């Protein structure tokens, strides 16, 4: 069915089984009929009340995407400036040979933190911040699907970021490089490595939470009629990048898990003397690390994809090509990680394969760049300020891409690997592929957020300072590297021909820093006395320019019906009708925050979601989660466990009070003659999707551990050691059966509950956690005789069991939660979303348990 097909009588066939009632799609006559101005004013008043932001000290309880997104972006910017200062200090040290400005240890801390902070505290969070801030606006929706989750993610990020970056001030920062290669990092003294592992794992969890929310936002929160092929390109990129975060971060988290077990309990995963292998970490790190590069790069392309059509005043050329390329880049990026390991002595065949794969990624990247050039050709390019930054980005990025083509060739990489040539290459890709487009994006989108423009004059000054400074700093580094200067050296001898080049780079770094400062000043300088811009100052065609923030907190006055990729260009009445409340959800009679949930592909209205409003629980939960991650760094374990329990309690409280609330009526008027359900469960509900997507990421983490097991088996002749004891097969078998029974009890409970057999369902939900706990006991008993410190084999078995058991405990809590909800009357036969989500979790959990017990008890005997 075509969304522009507005036949008045026949609703689309794909919505016949939808519980939605009424007319779909809306007729032109319905859209054209005026709204009574008095009614509209009354609606607006109620809507404003529902979306009111808490004032004063309660402002921190705000969860609205415009607030959280802004905090998120400003925090990421602050961390970037901190990491940038570290870079300047390093450039001072390297300005002249044999400099004594920084000693070796301090320098090592600085470059480790510079890389770690730029990656984990700036590049990825900045994408998430901008997306949280803009995605609802781009989609013409009210807010993100889980506003409190955004807030929780933000607070985790803030706490973790201050902890990690702050360590530099106490001379306690990690100093083994952002890649943390063992054995150097596993054996490093002090708490630096633990700060890195625990602090950044904490932030990675928050990043995954944001990714889940963004994916669900794109899939389920599009405005009615915005079929998937009408989505703004930015939303496509959010989908791709969210998916990449979901599959890229878990291997790193699994690696962190093993790494921290080695550091705190001396389990020898990376210790060759006891069967371990440092290379496993390199694989897990780069399976994360290479997609990470594209996780950083693609969102910036997405910004360019929004700016370029506006600058050219025509729709983007090659929309489908761009989408295909983005998806293709996403997939390919997971097949390139070995090019970071070309010098580790891998077989020639895999070098050839990964060289070819690394070159192949040029093609989708090139398509995206050429699509922008093509768009500019089709239209008449205006060099508006954001476009200037994008053009600068293209100039820098293409240079980085071309050196990328060089280093992707394994033999050439053998020469330049880990030299300043790579430092130059990666900064060209990251400045061209992230910093410049993001600053361009800030200049472009700023009026959406503040209804004011940033300064044209300062913007141009900033651009030219950054552009020249960047090139003065990094262009010479190509040569410095070819002349043999390795990366990560705190000093160098005077007679190697590197002196002038380094001095020039240092000068360039300061020019670049000046440019960044001009930009930051432009961003934060007071603008109270400047006039408001009109709502669409660049004459763009996409929905974010309908936003009336900050004057109105509701996002959109009414959720529009969309039939075009550039609605503001193609649907001339759109803005007036949105503002009048002609479209969907124009009112908030119940005083609740609501948004439209639509179908994943065709964006047919499915239901009205009640969103959670401001609250303390995300902040409190984040504080305790922080305690649980941060305290173990200092070997303070008991309070850490208490913090963990309190964090779980805070999250349960938040879920209990704010999610899956039974509505006062099953249907409500959604506007334009639609009656929509106010509660859905199962695959129609965003919450179910969130669980599904989260569990895909979780399964990836588990798969990484399983990969580790097979890696040792193939890489080490003594895995498992011939005389090593194995897990008890009988107890392991019993554990598997008990886990299976716990899963069956959950699935059965859902069926019984839906059939109205509430008592039986409760009985089943009571049996579930007991079976699950018994299974945990059996599994632990099966391996108690294995000593994890002696060899990597028992350590790996223990790691798999810890992973499995902690997940089963989580599953048991969820079963207990459903039971409590049922007893409290918050879950009924009809309103059973909690039970659907718990069952879905258990489907994944069953797979984890069965594979986990097989990996523990069966597979090693066959190895």
């Amino acid at each position, binding site marked *: 069915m075509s969304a522009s097909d507005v036949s008045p009588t026949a609703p689309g066939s794909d919505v016949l089984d939808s519980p939605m009632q009424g007319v779909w799609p809306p007729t032109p006559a319905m859209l054209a009929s005026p709204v009574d101005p008095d009614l509209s004013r009354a609606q607006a008043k109620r809507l404003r009340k529902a979306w009111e932001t808490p004032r004063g000290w309660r402002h921190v309880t705000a969860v609205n995407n415009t607030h959280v997104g802004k905090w998120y972006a400003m925090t990421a910017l602050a961390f970037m400036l901190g990491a940038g200062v570290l870079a300047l200090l390093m450039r001072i040290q390297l300005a002249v*040979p*044999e400099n004594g400005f920084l*000693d*070796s240890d301090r320098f*090592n801390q600085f470059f480790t933190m510079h890389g770690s902070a730029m990656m984990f505290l700036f590049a990825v969070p900045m994408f998430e911040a901008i997306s949280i801030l803009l995605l609802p606006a781009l989609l013409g929706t009210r807010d993100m699907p889980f506003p409190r989750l955004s807030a929780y993610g933000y607070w985790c990020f803030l706490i973790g970021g201050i902890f990690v970056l702050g360590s530099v001030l106490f001379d306690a920062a990690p100093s*083994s*490089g952002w890649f943390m*290669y063992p054995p*150097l990092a596993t*054996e490093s003294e002090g708490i630096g490595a633990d700060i890195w592992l625990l602090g950044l794992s904490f932030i990675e969890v928050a990043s995954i939470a944001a990714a889940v929310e963004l994916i669900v936002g794109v899939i389920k929160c599009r405005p009615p009629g915005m079929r998937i092929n009408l989505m703004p390109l930015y939303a496509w990129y959010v989908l791709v990048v969210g998916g990449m975060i979901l599959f890229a971060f878990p291997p790193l988290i699994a690696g962190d898990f093993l790494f921290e077990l080695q550091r705190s309990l001396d389990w020898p995963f990376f210790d*060759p*003397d006891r069967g371990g*292998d440092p290379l496993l970490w390199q694989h897990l790190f780069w399976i994360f690390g290479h997609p990470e590069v594209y996780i950083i790069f693609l969102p910036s392309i997405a910004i360019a994809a929004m700016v370029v059509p506006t600058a050219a005043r*025509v729709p983007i*050329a*090659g929309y489908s090509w761009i989408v295909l390329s983005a998806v293709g880049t996403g997939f390919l990026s997971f097949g390139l990680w070995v090019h970071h390991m070309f*010098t580790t002595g891998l077989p020639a065949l895999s070098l*050839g394969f990964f060289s070819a794969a690394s*070159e192949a990624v*040029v*093609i989708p990247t*090139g*398509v*995206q760049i*050429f*699509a922008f*050039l*093509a768009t*500019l*050709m089709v239209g*008449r*390019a205006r*060099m508006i300020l954001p476009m200037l930054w994008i*053009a600068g980005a*293209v100039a820098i990025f*293409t*240079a980085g891409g*071309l050196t990328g*083509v060089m280093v992707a*060739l394994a*033999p*050439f990489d*053998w*020469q*330049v*690997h*880990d*030299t300043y040539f790579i430092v130059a290459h990666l900064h060209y890709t990251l400045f061209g592929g992230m910093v410049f487009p993001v600053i361009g994006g800030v200049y472009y989108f700023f009026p959406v957020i503040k209804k004011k423009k940033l300064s044209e004059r300062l913007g141009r000054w900033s651009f030219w300072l950054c552009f020249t400074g960047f090139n003065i700093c990094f262009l010479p580094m190509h040569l410095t590297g*070819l*002349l043999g200067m*390795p*990366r*990560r050296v*705190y*000093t160098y001898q005077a*007679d*190697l*021909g*590197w002196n002038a*080049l380094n001095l020039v780079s240092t000068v360039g770094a300061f020019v670049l820093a000046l440019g960044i400062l001009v930009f930051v000043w432009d961003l934060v300088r007071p603008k109270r006395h400047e006039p408001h811009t009109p709502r669409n100052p660049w004459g763009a065609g996409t929905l974010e320019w309908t936003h009336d923030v900050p004057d109105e907190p509701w996002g959109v006055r009414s959720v529009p019906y969309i039939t075009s990729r550039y609605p503001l260009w193609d649907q001339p009445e759109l803005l007036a009708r949105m503002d009048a409340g002609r479209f969907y959800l124009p009112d908030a009679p119940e005083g609740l925050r609501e948004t439209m949930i639509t179908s994943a592909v065709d964006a047919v209205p499915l239901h009205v979601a009640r969103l959670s409003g401001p609250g303390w629980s995300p902040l409190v939960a984040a504080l305790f989660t922080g305690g649980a991650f941060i305290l173990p760094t200092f070997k303070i374990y008991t309070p850490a466990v208490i913090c963990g329990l309190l964090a779980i309690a805070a999250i349960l409280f938040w879920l209990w009070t704010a999610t899956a609330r039974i509505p006062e009526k099953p249907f409500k008027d959604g506007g334009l003659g639609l009656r929509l359900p106010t509660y859905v469960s199962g695959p129609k509900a965003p919450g179910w999707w969130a669980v599904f997507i989260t569990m895909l990421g979780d399964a990836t983490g588990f798969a990484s551990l399983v990969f580790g097991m097979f890696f040792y088996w193939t890489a080490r002749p003594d895995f498992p050691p011939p005389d090593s004891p194995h897990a008890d097969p009988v107890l392991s078998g019993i554990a598997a059966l008990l886990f299976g029974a716990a899963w069956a009890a959950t699935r059965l409970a859902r069926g019984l509950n839906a059939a109205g057999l509430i008592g039986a369902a409760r009985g089943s939900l009571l049996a579930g956690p007991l079976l699950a706990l018994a299974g945990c006991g059996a599994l632990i008993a099966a391996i108690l005789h294995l000593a994890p410190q002696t060899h990597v084999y028992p350590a790996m078995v223990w790691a798999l069991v810890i992973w499995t058991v902690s997940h089963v405990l989580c599953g048991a809590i969820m079963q207990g939660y459903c039971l409590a909800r049922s007893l409290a009357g918050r879950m009924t036969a009809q309103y059973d979303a909690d039970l659907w989500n718990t069952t879905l979790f258990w489907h994944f959990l069953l797979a984890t348990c069965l594979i986990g017990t097989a990996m523990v008890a069966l597979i090693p005997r066959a190895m």
Partner: protein
Amino acid sequence: MPNPVPQRYHGLSGMAWLSTLFLAGCKGQQSVLAPAGRDAEVLAGLFWVLLAGAVVLWLAVNGLMLYIAHLNPRPQSRRMAEGLIIGGGIVLPTLLLTALLIYSLREMPRQREAGSGLTVRITGESWWWRVEYLREGTPIASANEVRLPTGSRSELVLEASEYIHSFWIPAFGGKTDMIPGRTTRMSLEPTKSGEYRGQCTEFCGESHARMALIGVAMEPQDFAEWLTAQAGPADDPLTPQAMRGRDIFLREGCGGCHTIRGTPAQGAVGPDLTHFGGRRSLAAATLPMERQALIDWLRDPAAIKPGVRMPAYDHVPEADLADLATYLEGLE
């Protein structure tokens, strides 16, 4: 810092068009662009091809952008745009990259092939290089200096003791990591005799910046003579000063870590010092092999190399340090 080894200028043809800055840079002893080995020559050649291609492509893409953005040409049709995307984004890179892969794989240097002559085992220590020339019986031990004959492909067996390092002498060829618990390998074929600097390129902790080495390419005949001399025990001290130095060496327990063949010093923790005085540099190519540098090093190694495992000998009187230096310098 004084010059540890004499600088050499390796002229390069076809580069005159580059800036003087660039040419000045090529005098470096650690340069990819001044090859003195079969593999490095291939890779330097590959680089110039890659660079030329990259410059042409960069100019084409950015020239096109500048043309569109600034000259503001007549708007083109959507068909034309699609053509640019497919032609520029798919057809052109596919052709170029296929050609590039075929070319570079054909030109693939032989440094992963098995060596034919000499075998050297090099172990990355913290933060120096243990170098052993393998032969039947006990290997000939040395440190921080790798001598290879020109004209034949020598096999390098690479290991690491504590941390990961990466062995790299750019004038000879590419680098290979040294990983604890694993043995990696490569082979190198120097073509021009001379001295070339190399350096550890995998971050290995506090003194990563101070972990360099000297690669010496020698004519086969010279190399054979040198190796024979290396196989022998240390020279006995001849002067009274040097004899005192040997006594101090033994008295201070230096032999607990260092070996000097032909003396009671048989330690295996630190570098073998049997022919120490014949080496071109000190402390993993951090200091020149000069008397004062040696005394400074003995007095307080950590001041030169942070985190170094060798303890300071600042309690030893200055005169004794001087004698010790005399003895060590004499171990040619």
